């Protein structure tokens, strides 16, 4: 918070960036009306869930996991290891990032807008499901970043992998039904990013009535647990670079 003007300009510019993401889809749907049966408010819902859960998940894990590479290469992780407290929560807490206000503002606003626009019949179980979706999605997003961080333990360099991961995450900016089935299987079973927004949206928007969809928000916590497990495994593998 030392550079207040910078901070505000930064938030402002990030809002422009995310607004441009929405605008592109809006422009597309202005001409084509729907993508694979998804209209503009439905697409806005899909995108907003993705950005909002990312903002929550990344507040906790982005900075510690993206700095893993440097912590490992420079051996600075040792500083965290020698303290008599559990390392994972310590890392998360000391590197918490408050910089996601822009993400939350714009995706929150658009989410509220499209929830009004879409004629969803709300009942207590649907509200509960939406809350679970946001919580589960945030955990999944956090877990994805933890997996990238774990990579550093084995191969040191992870920044290019992170770049690739963010590109792959672009897949879920659109309903995965537009992709060939191999990609759909990949996004469901291998890297289950589709559980962040696509599957919960199918249920909430009434596009599919399969009862299995009720369990979609549970994938998030599962991925988070697995990723923390892999991270801790990686930590055991860690030997200080000594420099």
């Amino acid at each position, binding site marked *: 918070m030392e550079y207040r003007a910078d901070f505000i300009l*930064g938030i402002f510019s990030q809002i422009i*960036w995310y607004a*441009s993401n929405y605008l*592109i889809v809006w*422009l*597309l749907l202005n001409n084509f009306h729907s993508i694979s049966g998804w209209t503009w408010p439905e697409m806005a819902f899909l995108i907003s869930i993705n950005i909002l859960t990312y903002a929550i998940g990344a507040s906790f894990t982005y900075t510690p996991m993206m700095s893993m590479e440097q912590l490992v290469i420079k051996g600075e992780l040792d500083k965290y290891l020698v303290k008599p407290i559990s390392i994972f929560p310590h890392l998360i807490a000391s590197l918490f990032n408050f910089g996601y206000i822009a993400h939350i503002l714009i995706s929150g606003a658009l989410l509220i807008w499209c929830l009004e626009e879409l004629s969803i019949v709300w009942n207590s179980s649907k509200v509960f499901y939406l809350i679970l979706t946001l919580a589960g999605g945030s955990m999944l997003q956090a877990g994805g970043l933890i997996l990238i961080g774990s990579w550093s333990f084995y191969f040191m360099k992870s920044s290019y992998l992170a770049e690739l991961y963010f590109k*792959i995450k672009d897949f879920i900016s659109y309903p995965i039904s537009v*992709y060939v089935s191999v990609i759909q299987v990949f996004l469901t079973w291998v890297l289950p990013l589709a559980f962040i927004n696509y599957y919960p949206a199918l249920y909430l928007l009434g596009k599919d009535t399969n009862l299995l969809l009720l369990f979609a928000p549970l994938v998030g916590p599962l991925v988070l647990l697995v990723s923390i497990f892999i991270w801790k495994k990686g930590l055991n593998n860690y030997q200080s670079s000594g420099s």
Partner: protein
Amino acid sequence: MKVYIAFCNKSFIRGLSYRSEVWLRILGNMVLIFIQVSIWKSLIGNSESNGITLLNMITYSVITTSVMNLLMTRVFLSIDHKLKSGDISTDLQKPISYPLYLFAEQLGVVGFQVVFTTIPSICISILLFGIQYPDAPNIVPFIISLLLAMIISYLLGYLIALISFWFLTTFALNWTITALISIFSGSLIPLWFFNPFWANLTSTLPFQYLGFVPSAIYLGKVEHPYYIILEGVGWVIGLLLIVNLLWWRAIKRLVIQGG
């Protein structure tokens, strides 16, 4: 001239030290192309929209994604780094033109990208989706438009770097320029699918030269390619003037700060 070629070579060779990441880069490029192709498949399918076929759009996506690899907007990161580390003061003492030196350096970076990312991605795309080949009269204007894309993106990046002499940070400018390019370059959606208001706005901005113009010329969808190229040259001259003006002011500022 020789010295600039040397700088260009040096930055190309520096790229080689990251060759293990080449596969990840190609994969990243392919993901981008693949997403666009899937969306156009779902939107256009086997019919056509406003006289645009699916093959047109696949080709369009492959070209804009490749043109993205040519862009030099990131030059400001290099200046930003030098500004923070103070290396800029030794750079400025060298008896060379600083903007040309940076251009040569970026050219090396782009050259590496083209050889190790763009060309392989285009080959894979041809195998996977098949792309359209240009009509002979469009080849020359297409190549000129690629050069324009490089020069205009360089000048925009340089402009950001100069503005950052005052702001001392590029964070906000970086996000803003990325956003502007992603909409107004037309690299994801071509201008002919924009609604009239946004299409008009876009055609008054220089960003269309960073994606839409080269691809549209390639596809032969521009009626008078040389006219639009001439307009692009106008943008280059305009940007050069602004950049020069700011450069002299920025240099003065730098001297005062270094006092």
